[in-house]
């Protein structure tokens, strides 16, 4: 230090036991007797579990063989997945046309990937989605441009799961927001309708809503009119999820300070402007974490449609396991399905974290 009056210790570094790898291990793994014991026990358990698991999954495993050959090996039989991959993914969709749902899914992934960037959130994005949805529908349904028509009863596997989830979630979210606003409305009729709706739907399990959509609902329709079963399940999922989103959004609305409403109103903004420009952007941001929890669980709940005999991803996998050749290889098959679900859920939660970070940038000090 060149200035003896300067008592600030500028060149000094923290002691070596508090930095780097050693410092990190000390601070996080061995900072007390209890933590040291926990660290040792955890390491022992990992040592017991991880190597055998790796051996089972990767070293002793077989990837391309028959069910018979699989029974001779001690490792995992991934053949159950690879030999049946087209049935697991596409179910009863006509074998020769399975490129069509594949392309439709790729379009969907492309659209989702494009939309995740907030810079692309412009009006044109809506048109891009409408165009994309048109092509996906065309590919799935066929009947035009030389594509052979495929009945929606044959739609199954991963495309069905994605269809139910993506449409279910995108339609449930705005409906939930409207219900939340309705429940806080000053108009008694609107408020009571919203309350009755939310409480009735929340009071009923999703399974019973699905049964109602499949069995009871058609009884009320005039004779000769039928509504597509997938559509009915889709509506049940939307109605169910919206009620939960409504309550989460209502929590966000209640967290908004009254001063925000007053500042907006005292400028002469009307109700819709106040909500759209001031209240909802802030309230919806607050409730991103619980909203994403609901969306994730709704995504997983789409697997309940098996009970009304829709063949989603889980059901096609189960039916492969019912084949005598592949009976008994359920761990491998279910691990595969679990990984697909995990990829979906994890990208949702990862994206929500990214969104939260971006939206709060600059606002906090």
């Amino acid at each position, binding site marked *: 230090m060149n200035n003896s009056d300067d008592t600030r210790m500028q060149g000094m570094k923290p002691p070596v036991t508090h930095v780097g790898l050693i410092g990190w291990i000390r601070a996080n793994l061995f900072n007390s007797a209890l933590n040291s014991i926990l660290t040792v026990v955890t390491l022992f358990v990992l040592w017991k579990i991880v190597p055998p698991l790796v051996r089972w999954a990767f070293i002793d495993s077989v990837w391309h063989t028959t069910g018979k050959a699989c029974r001779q090996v001690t490792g995992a039989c991934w053949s159950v997945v690879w030999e049946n991959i087209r049935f697991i993914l596409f179910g009863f969709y006509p074998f020769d046309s399975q490129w069509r749902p594949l392309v439709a899914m790729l379009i969907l992934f492309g659209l989702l990937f494009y939309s995740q960037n907030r810079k692309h959130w412009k009006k044109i994005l809506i048109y891009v989605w409408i165009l994309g949805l048109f092509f996906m529908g065309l590919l799935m349904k066929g009947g035009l441009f030389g594509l052979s028509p495929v009945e929606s009863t044959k739609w199954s596997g991963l495309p069905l799961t994605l269809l139910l989830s993506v449409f279910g979630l995108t339609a449930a979210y705005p409906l939930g927001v409207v219900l939340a606003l309705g429940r806080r409305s000053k108009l008694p009729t609107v408020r009571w309708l919203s309350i009755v709706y939310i409480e009735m739907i929340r009071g009923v399990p999703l399974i019973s809503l699905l049964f109602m959509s499949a069995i009871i609902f058609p009884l009320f329709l005039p004779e000769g009119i039928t509504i597509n079963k997938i559509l009915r399940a889709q509506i049940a999922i939307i109605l169910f999820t919206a009620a939960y989103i409504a309550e989460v959004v209502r929590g966000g609305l209640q967290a908004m*300070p009254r*001063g*925000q409403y*007053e*500042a*907006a*109103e*005292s*400028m*002469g*903004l*009307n109700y819709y*402007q106040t909500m759209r*420009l*001031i209240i909802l*952007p*802030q309230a919806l*941001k607050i409730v991103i974490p619980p909203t994403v929890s609901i969306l994730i669980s709704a995504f997983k709940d789409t697997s309940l449609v098996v009970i009304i005999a829709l063949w989603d991803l889980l059901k096609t996998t189960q039916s492969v396991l019912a084949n005598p050749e592949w009976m008994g290889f359920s761990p491998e098959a279910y691990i595969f399905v679990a990984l697909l679900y995990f990829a979906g859920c994890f990208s949702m939660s990862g994206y929500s974290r990214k969104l939260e970070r971006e*939206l709060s940038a*600059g*606002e*906090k*000090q």
Partner: protein
Amino acid sequence: MKEQETREMQNGQSDNAMVEIIDMHKWFGDFHVLQGIDLTVQKKERIVICGPSGSGKSTLIRCINRLEEHQKGRIIVDGTELTNNIKNIEKIRAEVGMVFQHFNLFPHLTIVDNLTLGPIWVRKVPKAEAEETAMFYLEKVHIAEQARKYPGQLSGGQQQRVAIARSLCMKPKLMLFDEPTSALDPEMIKEVLDVMIELAQEGMTMLVVTHEMGFAKSVAHRVLFMDFGQIVEANTPEEFFDNPQHDRTKLFLSQILH
């Protein structure tokens, strides 16, 4: 300057009134918070309202832009009576600026977006023009360099000056101030009061709820003292401070002017 203005205002006709309040009452549940308020605010008049907490002074000015609804009597703002007609309410709110104790800036918008929101959505001003106006008023409150920041990055005094500029962007005919300096650290009060004094010098009609008696002395034409929901005393600042008429006024002044 002040006396000349006062004379001009007194010579004016009754259609020169910006706000007319006639026998106005308000209740919060059973609590009779405003008990027969009669008040006329002339154009360009500046009134300071003071009184103990709970006396109804904030509620009074919040009734003028219908943040609170009065239950009896009449309030006429710039020739339009406040009723349940939502169009009239929105019209009056667009003409009346309000500055709050806790600033109430919109935290998710930048400073300049806070200022342009009202003009763009209520007055339907083109965006470029609204931004120009916003920068003009930010210059005026000496804070133009912060235009692209978010409210959370500014000090309390700066936020309150932004809030004043936000109201001015709507080109209001009347400004209401609800304890604008009460939530500020002492060293920031002056920068906000200076902006308010400049505004007063330009002839803005102002109704200010405050305990800043220095401000009242230097800019107010009239000082109102409220207690238990009534206007107990209304007088020029000179008379009000040097020669208060009511015991309650005397007691209040002795408590705040040590």
